[in-house]
């Protein structure tokens, strides 16, 4: 699965020294990103994951049109019935007689939305914070990173739970809380990368030839730290989705009549003996989504950072 590797890197790793990989790449005339894309496309698990995720996303977006049942309508004649294609209850109904198929898709909306928004938030905070710390260096860097270290050792999950308890269970709060938790690692990664790139010859060369700082940051530094950032972002999304489901499972996340996979799983777990489908469908959707994001993240990492893993 991870056998994607460019010959140049392989030779560089086991051969004489690293300069020849640069030379060979130049001759081959492919950019780093093109190389990465080719490697990613060779990774079957990642490609299949991307396809599946696209399907789930499309299903989530078009949920209202995919089922004849509204997500909050109660069918008194169909309380907790198993999957029933004739009536259009493809995933069965829950204990309140609501269509599980459309509710699972609405759960997907919440999960994907949380994943996207909270990750974007963590991305923005983390990249700005990390880039500033890394680029400024010295004392400022020291203080900023010490602050991150302290935050790191806080048991954030518990604070998020307290937040949810005290300030009500509202979805926007989840976005903010999870985004605020996840930016720490991003900041560390960005800072480390910025520090490394800053010392590279091409940045020094740009400095020496009088290129402006803004231009250096946007033309030289950001493109070169993008790889790890994208990889980490892809791995943050499932993390956030998982955390939201965890909170919802505990009853601290999304509230009725809206739903999320965590809520559905929690409801399903309570009646799993009599109505296993109520657990099976949302759990499967959650697991598949997490699978896909992780496979894509791994694939991206292997594609952008080709060590033989």
């Amino acid at each position: 699965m991870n056998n994607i590797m460019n010959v140049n890197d392989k030779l560089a790793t086991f051969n004489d020294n690293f300069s020849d990989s640069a030379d060979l790449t130049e001759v081959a005339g492919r950019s780093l990103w093109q190389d990465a894309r080719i490697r990613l496309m060779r990774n079957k698990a990642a490609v299949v994951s991307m396809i599946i995720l696209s399907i789930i996303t499309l299903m989530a977006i078009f949920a209202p049109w995919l089922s004849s049942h509204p997500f909050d309508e109660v069918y008194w004649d169909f309380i907790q019935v198993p999957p029933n294609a004739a009536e259009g209850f493809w995933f069965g109904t829950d204990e309140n007689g609501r269509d599980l198929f459309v509710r699972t898709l609405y759960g997907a909306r919440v999960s994907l939305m949380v994943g996207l928004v909270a990750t974007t938030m963590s991305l923005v905070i983390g990249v700005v914070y990390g880039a500033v710390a890394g680029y400024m260096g010295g004392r400022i860097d020291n203080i900023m990173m010490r602050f991150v270290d302290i935050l790191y050792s806080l048991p954030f999950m518990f604070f998020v739970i307290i937040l949810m308890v005290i300030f009500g269970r509202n979805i926007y709060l989840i976005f903010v809380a999870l985004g605020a938790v996840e930016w720490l690692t991003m900041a560390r990664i960005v800072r480390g990368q910025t520090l490394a790139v800053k010392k590279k010859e091409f940045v020094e060369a740009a400095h020496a030839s009088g290129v402006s700082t803004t231009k250096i940051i946007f033309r030289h530094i950001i493109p070169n730290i993008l790889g790890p950032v994208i990889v980490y972002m892809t791995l943050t999304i499932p993390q956030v989705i998982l955390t939201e489901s965890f909170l919802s499972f505990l009853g601290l996340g999304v509230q009725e009549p809206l739903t999320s996979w965590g809520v559905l799983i929690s409801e399903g777990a309570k009646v799993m003996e009599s109505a296993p489908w109520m657990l099976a469908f949302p759990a499967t959707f959650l697991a598949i989504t997490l699978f896909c994001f992780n496979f894509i993240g791994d694939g991206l990492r292997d594609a952008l950072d080709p060590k033989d893993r």
Partner: protein
Amino acid sequence: MNENSIILEVKNLNTRFDTPDGEVAAANEISFTLKKGESLGVVGESGSGKTQIFMALMGLLAKNGKTTGEAIFKGQNILGLPVKELNKVRGVSLSMIFQDPMTSLNPYLKVSRQMTEVLIEHQGMSQKKALERSIEMLELVGIPEARKRVHMYPHEFSGGMRQRVMIAIALLCEPDLLIADEPTTALDVTIQAQILDLLHDLKDKLGMSIVMITHDLGVIASMCDHVMVMYGGRVVETGSVQALFSDAKHPYTRGLLQSMPRIDGDHNEDLYAIPGQPPNLQALPQGCAFQPRCQYATNLCQQERPQTTEFDAGRTASCHQLSSAFHASSPVKNNPVNVVEGVL
């Protein structure tokens, strides 16, 4: 074994790497022999395949690497030997030291441990005896306060000292052949000379053969009896140091010699540089691999790969233009004999 006995004979060795972009031939049809007590210099650009030949001998190729051919070391073919059998040879009669002494020692183990384990494994020595022997060896390679330093971790040594430790480890079982893969490339110039001197001394003292892999002709001139020049995964020229430096036949060898700076040269003249890029092993040019960079290239060079010809005793070269006019008439402008003498 008499003085002139052959210690290593490599026949038609090929090394291939399987990669997603196709198979890469790192070394092709390599054949050479090495006599006891002699030293061979292997020279070539990065990626010319010079290291991979010896990684193959040591069984150290990456997992996707394959080797065919034969390498008779002390009467035994060591290519494709199972690891268990190979371990009776590696570190015992055949040792190797590497380019980067900073990362070649295990940072988590004391030097004593990294040395004694060799003696315990191969010679069944007791811990105490092995430690004594290790200290002796460290003293031999010029580590001051060896008795104290043997109990330190690698990061407490400087780069040059680490390379000395590497050499000490390699020599613990008094090997018949030491392969040195660019042992001085990562070191400061002053340290480089010290390490080369050390190797030179040890070679005489222990009577072992040395293979010196390098891209530095100066190193070869000062250390080796024979030279093997590699380009694009093939041997392009061989010969004794004297013969090859004074009368290089292959245009690539000539280019290498000309591109060496000389103290007594004309300082107003530009230093010669071989035009073009080192070859991409995945997409070697048709015909002779050097042909795109060669000023003497003809149609024939572009179509057919030249055969290796032995044109003199112990001298071979792979070039279509061997017999043509330029070799006979035009001596290398930057007469390399002076280079050799200058370095020696």
